[in-house]
Each structure stands twice: as structure tokens, then as C-alpha cells.
């Protein structure tokens, strides 16, 4: 396995087009997005509070985010808590899984951190079209992405680690 990087141009005619624009390709760093938006005044603490909610929800059900096929989430407040960056790295194409993500958040009762961002549609629970428009309007596509272990899915990584653990266990049992 060789590390790999990819440059993502502003436009590429070979990209599949969707209703709301190009479908960005999978890169060595998998799929993902970086969404940057203004915070509704006075809600920065509520946004921070979502961090605790996610931690608590995972304590209740460690697999509650599993259907999103995530690698990482990075949530950043910046510019004196007036702006928010939501960066996610995952294995599925968000354009295709928007509705699935909405359903998952509805089910979890967490609602979404996006509700505290300016311009986020109030009817997001039943209007995936408006949700994806917001995401598209605030997405800042990468111009370069790098993967030390390129194109490997989270499931494959988890399987490899489980296999290693099982081997260790097996070897222990043979002592």
C-alpha cells in the first residue's frame, strides 16, 4: 500500500453531475465535507453543548453513528465563536446519503447541530432538498486530499484491528 494524494480541481467535466452540482469524487482520504457557516448569535454555547450530547449518546449506544460510515468528525468554532466548521470524513457519498443522515439524527433525538447556524432550513426533518441546498451552499471543497492508507474504509480498518486482536488472543491461549 502506497500513500496517495489527489488534487481536486475547481471543475472537472468527467464528474458526475447531480441536481445541485457536481458529485465530488472519492479521494485517497475517502468521502467527506467541510461546511463553514455563521453561528446564530448567542448559540455558540449550545453548539459546544452538542459535543457533550454526542459523547453521552455514544455511551448509551456505541453504534448509533455506525450507519453513517464515518471515520472522523471535527467540529470547530472560530472567529470568536461567530463561525463554525463541520468537517466529516466518511466512506459514503453524502449526496446519496443525505436522507439517511437526516433520518438517523431524527431517530437519535439529537436533532442536529446545524439548527444553530444561520440559514439552516427549519423544516429540515421532512425537507431533504432544503438540507442539501444548505450543505451545498456552505461546503468548501478541498483542493488537495492525502491518505497515508488511501481509499481504505472504516469497516476495513475495524476488521483489520479485530483480526489483530483475535490473533493476539489466539496466541495467548496457545501459551
Amino acid at each position: 500500500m502506497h500513500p496517495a494524494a489527489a488534487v481536486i480541481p475547481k471543475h472537472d467535466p468527467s464528474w458526475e453531475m447531480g441536481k445541485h452540482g457536481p458529485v465530488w469524487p472519492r479521494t485517497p482520504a475517502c468521502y467527506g465535507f467541510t461546511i463553514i457557516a455563521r453561528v446564530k448569535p448567542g448559540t455558540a454555547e449550545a453548539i459546544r453543548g452538542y459535543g457533550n450530547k454526542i459523547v453521552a449518546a455514544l455511551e448509551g449506544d456505541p453504534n448509533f453513528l455506525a450507519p453513517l460510515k464515518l471515520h472522523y468528525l471535527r467540529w470547530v468554532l472560530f472567529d470568536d465563536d461567530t463561525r463554525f466548521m463541520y468537517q466529516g470524513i466518511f466512506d459514503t457519498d453524502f449526496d446519496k446519503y443525505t436522507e439517511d443522515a437526516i433520518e438517523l439524527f431524527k431517530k437519535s433525538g439529537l436533532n442536529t447541530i446545524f439548527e444553530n447556524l444561520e440559514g439552516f432550513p427549519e423544516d429540515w426533518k421532512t425537507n431533504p432538498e432544503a438540507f442539501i441546498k444548505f450543505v451545498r451552499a456552505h461546503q468548501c471543497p478541498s483542493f488537495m486530499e492525502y491518505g497515508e492508507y488511501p481509499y481504505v474504509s472504516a469497516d476495513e480498518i475495524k476488521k483489520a484491528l479485530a483480526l489483530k486482536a483475535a490473533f493476539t488472543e489466539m496466541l495467548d491461549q496457545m501459551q
Partner: protein
Amino acid sequence: MSPPMDSPLELADIQSGVLRPRPSPYAATYILFRIDQAAAGRELMERFSRVVGSAADPQSPAGAAWVSVALTFQGLKALGVPQASLEGFAWEFQQGMKARAGALRDTGESSPEHWEAPLGGPEVHVVMVAVAPNSQTLAAALDRARAAYEALGGVTAIWRQDCHALPDETEPFGFRDGINHPAIEGSGIPGTDPHETPLKAGEFVLGYRDEMGGFASVPQPEVLGRNGTYVVFRKLHQRVARFRRYIQDQASGPQDEELVAAKMMGRWRSGAPLALCPLHDDPAIGADPKRNNDFLYADDPAGYLTPLGSHVRRANPRDANIAGEVRLHRMIRRGAAYGPLLPKGVTEDDGADRGLMFTFVGAHPKRQFEFVQSEWINDGVFAGLAGARDPVAATVDGDEVFSIPRRPIPRRLKGLPQFVVTRGGEYCFMPSLSALRWLADLQTPAPTP
């Protein structure tokens, strides 16, 4: 604002072909029309509106045959549907299947440049499907239909495909077909999976609440869009000889051939699911509608019974642990076989064209049909299978390997060739009966060609 009240499904206004499973056995014919003159196209809609049955009718107004009618986006334009109305249709439908080939993974041999003319072309405007219990009844109904459209002038039948049931209700590879039909709230037509809660009507018909609690965009005026839905027709060529030869090459003997084939499909030829019959076929279960769809996957997470990558587990993962929400990607799908049966035991291609006319019905072509094609059939990430594709139905792009979970190590089938090739198809809108009459009564100026 309080959400709009849910109204019951208006079955008397919905085409029977949307909700009713086809008869079995069956004979079916697809005819494509080009509209040369808008006035003639409108008259055709008028005539169709008198022969298309509703989902509420136990009897078809066309006698022993059932007729369904759908239009492509180009067809709606050719009838002179106003621009404001056209813009309310699903974006993917407006693009058409040919333009969506990339999203559907119709590449290589399945790419539009190889499609059968006129499929995917700009002159396909109207799709008529007639279904009857046998060929004689169908032929009589088609004779009457022909008299109606040939006399019309200004509309031309440009393509025809005849389909017919194969012995034992199988598809051309030899597996029982048409087992799964989702239950739909308010349709009165039972589903086949006792574990599946009926799906919201808005998943299948425009104007009703869907699984997300919202509504798909209804093209306006209301009479045009409401009670209509989207249908996708695809002509899928099946390489039966190649399929048989591949199975033979992989297997250690005739019994193993059946096992390999069943593992690829997820069911035995009889329709008996591996989930219930992991070791050998059980034709009694396969033929029993009470049992042949009565199973789940959660108790088989590794796929020792039904491989995670097998065709039927991909096409409907039920309660399996996958990316996303299964219920957002359910659809009504029907297959009608075409072409001659390849005689039993033959493993050399006879050059005949055979396969399935595949039909999708659903209100959300993107998250239902297109999603299943790209994510479930032509990828494996959703089920933790990295890039592995459907061993039967996928477009082959490179070295395809199919893994059959087995203790102590999986059995791997290598070098999978492509068994199913897309010959073409169309994205269509299947209007309600009142919309057919609305289209017939259009008074807008005819579009300039």
C-alpha cells in the same frame, strides 16, 4: 403551521400498474411511441384514459389485458405541457436515463453508446405496457389497441418488446422471480414480507406523506402530478450461457454448481431463501408465498447463510447492519422475461437476445432507483464489502471477486464476468387517470419541433 392532514390513497385515480403485481403467468408487450403532432398525442392520451384501469378496479376496462401508460420528459414536452409544470418534475426524470448513465453505473458494455435504438433517444415519448395472463389474450388486446393508434396519425409506434413468462415463473438465469412486493399503506394490496411494516404511500405515489414525513415535489397543477409516480424501464440482456459456464467452472460438481449459484443469488432456483434453507434447495418453501419471503438477516451478520454480497441481500438488505436506512431505498420492482429460453444444459451462447424488461416504480427516483443501482448493486461499502459489487447484476469494471463466507476461510469466486448488460431504457412519469384526461385536454400551443 400544522402539517397537512393525511388523506387515504385515491386508488380509483391511480393506474393499476403502479400498485398491482402483474398476473402470473403472464405475457407482456412494451410499445414506445413518438408524438409527431401534439394534437394527436393528446388524442392518444384521451384514448388511453379509456383503457387504463385503476388500482381500485378488479376488472380492466381493456378486458382481459391490463394497460399502463407512462411518458418521458420529452413526451410531456411534445404534448405541450407548460414549462412551469415541467419544472416541478424530479430533476433526474428531467435528465432522462441516458444522461444519468454515469450515476447508474451504465458504463462499458452497458453505456448508452451501445444501447438499442431508439432507447434513450429523444424520440421516445410514450411507453405503453400491456399485460395479460397469456399471449392469445394479449394479442387480441394489442390488435384493438393498434387499430386505435394507427388510425390516429401524428403518433408513431417506434419500438416493441414482447415478454412472456418462462416455465416455473423464473427469470432467464433460472431463478424464481417476482417474490418480493412491499406492502404500501392504504393500498389494500398485501406485501410479501411479513416482517416489513407497510411503507408510507408517499414512497410510491405523489401527493402523499413519505417515510421522511414529507412530500415529494408534486408537479403542478395538482391534477397533473397527484396520484402519479415515476417508473423506470430497462431492457437488461442476460448472458445465460456465460452464467452457466462460470458456475460450472467454479464448482466441483453438479451439486456444488447449485450451491455456488444460490450463494451468488441469495436464493435457490426454486426461490427458497438461503436464510431458511442454507444447505440445499427446498422447492416446497420456494413455491410457498407464506414462507419464501419470511426471513431476516440480523441473525446472520457474517453472511454464513446468505452472503452479504449476494444479489437479493443487496437488493433488499432488510434488517442487516448497513449504511443508512433501508426503508428510504425500497421500491416496487417487476421483471418480465423476453427472448427464448436457453435449453437446459446449454453452455454455449446461441446468439439470441434474452433477458428481462425491468420496471421500477417509486416516487423518489434518486434515493430509490439510482441509489440502489450505485450504492447497493455497484458498490459494497454500504455492507462493509469495500468496492465489491453484485456478483450477478453489476457492471463489471476490473477484477471482480465474490466472497462466500465459510468456516474456516471464505470461498472466493474470482474473475467474475459481466452477466447482465443494459440495452437501454427510459425514465418515465406514470400519470394518474385524471392527469391523462388533463393531458388530453391541454389547450396550450403545440411546441415547435
